[in-house]
């Protein structure tokens, strides 16, 4: 077994990286704040404020969600803070907190309503919400000052200390940027961060490993809304004047552009993106527009062209081009050796999976009828049949993904859980027919995600490093799982560089680390070369010896015959026969089903 190629040193590397990001940002920003001319300090604050909101949006994009109305949450933060502080005599700091809380509440409401929307419906809904928010501010003139806005917002004060100095304000803003950037940077390399990345790849896959997708998606949406609200509230207290203009569609789009510039994959990228957008804006205003004597619309055209150009060149964002150069922050192999034994869930002596008389109708068509079989302890059972025989349907019914029209399923002695995220708690794990791994992450991180259900640490713990013991244990297990599938030499490779066979084995390792009693493999050998298939057979028998049961759906008959204790043959939606591999191999009906009659 080869040693890890790239990353050496302690497993704290992600901590070091995030602290470096935070310290670097605050040092550079403070230096500018203290020594730069007044005009640049205002710019610095502007960049910092949009960076705060852009980081939230980046987190949202990492989770696979797109918002075209993020500026509306800024507006809520700004207007609630400003109105409370100016018209209702709230102390500024409490007004700010109330504004942030109001955006968070709006995030819960809007997210709760819209996050069930699929595909492009979510960006459309957020776009409409943003437009409605702008229109509402104008319409509520008596309270909000309408289209012209209002001024005389008191300065931000903390415990009697008034934050009137621009330079001090800039340092406060950038401290927030630094904490958020450092925290998110660490978060992405932890349990919750891996789950967020998995959400973007495939929600169903994330749920199989125990992620409550609905809750996590909402959490990310609320965090993004909260950061936008904080940005808006600080905006109000800095400029002491607000109007609907800075919170319109253009601002939402500029935030999105900042995130896309920054790569949509890292909070630090959002900071860079926000800086780049502001810098480009200044450049255009000060040079091009002035030289050519054109109005500010040139800047809009240029931004549009750059946005289109970037997306045409790199449809995955600039990140897809940069991420090879980005250092890998991951953990190296631990010294101690641990064993991955299957959990002892389920009742002894009983079948782990028992399927009796199941059938499925889709519309008027009968896809499956009267299929029965069981998987006992320490058994490998193969499920085979030609194309369209009903293997996938059977597989999905067995895991509770599809409800059978007739018959019943017992998984560890009980009906399959209604929520996919409970499957892993039953001691069941699976792989997918079409490989579903997180291409942007390393092999090791992909495997580590499999341990999600055994961990407890959440977002805050991940941001501020309160989960170190848990992470160490997770990565120790991930290394072990990679050793078992003999891919430890590729631990720090991005998953996007794997060949098909390797990617399938990563899925197996990811399933192993969740310590299942029953492992469901969906065509693990499809696309594998002969050598890889031989390895797979060896692996399956090692797992069986370690006390794991396996249900194997596979096309390669010979591979199945040499692996399994029992074979279930399906043909055209019906159970053709169940038996020992040797019986099945000799059966005329099976040969006919495969070769044709």
């Amino acid at each position, binding site marked *: 077994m080869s040693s890890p190629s790239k990353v050496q040193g302690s497993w704290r590397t992600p901590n070091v990286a995030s602290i470096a990001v935070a310290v670097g940002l605050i040092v550079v920003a403070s230096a500018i704040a203290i020594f730069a001319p007044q005009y640049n300090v205002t710019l610095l604050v502007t960049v910092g404020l949009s960076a705060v909101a852009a980081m939230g949006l980046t987190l949202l994009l990492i989770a696979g969600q797109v918002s075209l109305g993020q500026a509306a949450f800024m507006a809520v933060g700004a207007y609630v803070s400003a109105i409370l502080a100016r018209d209702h005599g709230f102390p500024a700091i409490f007004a700010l907190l109330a504004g942030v809380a109001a955006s968070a509440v709006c995030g819960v409401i809007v997210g709760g309503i819209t996050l069930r929307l699929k595909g492009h419906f979510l960006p459309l809904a957020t776009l409409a919400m943003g437009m409605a928010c702008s229109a509402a501010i104008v319409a509520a003139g008596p309270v909000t000052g309408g289209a012209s806005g209002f001024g005389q917002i008191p300065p931000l004060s903390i415990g009697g200390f008034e934050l009137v100095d621009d330079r001090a304000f800039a340092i406060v803003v950038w401290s927030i940027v630094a904490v958020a950037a450092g925290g998110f940077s660490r978060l992405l390399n932890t349990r919750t961060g891996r789950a967020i990345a998995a959400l973007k790849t495939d929600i169903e896959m994330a749920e199989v490993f125990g992620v409550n997708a609905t809750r996590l998606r909402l959490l990310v949406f609320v965090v993004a809304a909260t950061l936008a609200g904080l940005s808006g509230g600080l905006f109000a207290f800095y400029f002491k004047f607000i109007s609907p203009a800075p919170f319109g569609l253009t601002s939402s789009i500029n935030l999105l552009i900042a995130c896309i510039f920054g790569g949509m994959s890292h909070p630090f990228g959002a900071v860079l993106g926000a800086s780049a957008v502001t810098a480009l804006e200044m450049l255009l205003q000060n040079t091009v527009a002035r030289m050519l004597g054109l109005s500010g619309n040139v800047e809009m055209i240029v931004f549009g062209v750059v946005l289109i150009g970037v997306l045409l060149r790199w449809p995955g964002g600039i990140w897809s081009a940069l991420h090879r150069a980005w250092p890998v922050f991951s953990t190296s192999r631990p010294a101690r050796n641990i064993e991955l034994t299957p959990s002892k869930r389920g009742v002894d002596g009983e079948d782990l999976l028992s399927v009796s008389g199941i059938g499925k109708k889709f519309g008027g068509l009968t896809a499956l009828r009267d299929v029965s079989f069981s998987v006992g302890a320490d058994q490998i059972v193969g499920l085979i049949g*030609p*194309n369209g025989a009903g293997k996938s349907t059977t597989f999905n019914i067995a895991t509770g993904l599809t409800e059978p029209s007739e018959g019943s399923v017992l998984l560890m002695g009980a009906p399959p859980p209604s929520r996919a995220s409970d499957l892993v708690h039953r001691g069941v794990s699976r792989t997918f027919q079409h490989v579903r791994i997180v291409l942007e992450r390393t092999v090791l991180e992909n495997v580590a995600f499999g341990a999600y259900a055994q961990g407890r640490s959440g977002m805050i713990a991940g941001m501020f490093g309160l989960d170190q013991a848990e992470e160490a244990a997770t990565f120790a297990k991930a290394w072990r799982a990679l050793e078992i599938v003999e891919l430890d030499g590729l631990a720090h490779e991005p998953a996007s560089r794997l060949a098909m066979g390797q990617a399938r084995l990563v899925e197996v390792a990811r399933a192993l680390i969740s310590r299942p009693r029953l492992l469901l493999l969906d065509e693990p050998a499809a696309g594998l070369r002969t050598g890889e*298939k031989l390895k797979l*057979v060896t692996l399956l028998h090692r797992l069986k010896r370690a006390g794991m049961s396996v249900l194997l759906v596979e096309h*390669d*008959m010979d*591979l199945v015959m040499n692996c399994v204790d029992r074979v279930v043959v399906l043909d055209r939606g019906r159970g053709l026969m169940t038996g020992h591999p040797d019986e099945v191999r000799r059966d005329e009906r099976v*040969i006919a089903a495969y*070769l*044709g009659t």
Partner: protein
Amino acid sequence: MPDLCISGLNVGYGRATVIESLDLDVKSGELVTVLGANGAGKSTLLNGIMGLRPPRAGSVTLDGVDLAGLRPEQLVARGVVLVPERRELFGSLPVEVNLRLGGYRTGAPAKSLERIYGLFPILAERRRQKAATLSGGEQQMLAVGRALMAEPRLLMLDEPSIGLAPLIVQEILRVIGQLKSEGLTIILVEQNARLALSVADRGYVLEVGRIVLEGSSAELSADPRLSQAYLGGAADYAAARDQVYVD
């Protein structure tokens, strides 16, 4: 009449190479079948020829004319037509519109339409029905009919028998036989090996993207290695298994 010549073809999806340096010839007027187990790369091969999945390397020529880099519609204009495995019909449009669209390049003359209705009389009866309401067998006939509307020189059929009742399969085979007797060059991809070999002149057997066997239909039918390619048996899995229990 066309001669199709494929050499060194590489086709892949994302990170995986599915078809690797594959050579294949089809002579004018021949019916050649490509056999193989699931996942062997049969559909990928046809999609590669058709430009749906542009090949990464190798050449495809028809009568000496290079077809590499052409888009599917340009291939159709050159007489290369595919009946895909999933049929890809226009479900919400009537049968007749589906057929007319098959003849998009030629302006869908009434004569061609009559010919298709002659081959598949059931389609004439269903001409005003939406394609999605047809039975599986009728949809397959429509898919073949739509392809013929383009007046192909080379017709490629991807698993036309899949999921169909034996009687319907016979009906489709009858038409394939008739087209062959009219001199059309055909590539037939099938999972049902015996069925395909009963109509084909020659066959190739694919295994994980490579040709492992080729010969006349009679030779292939008699070759025990054919069933091996389907049922596996090439690798020594038993040794791999036993290795676990040695230590």
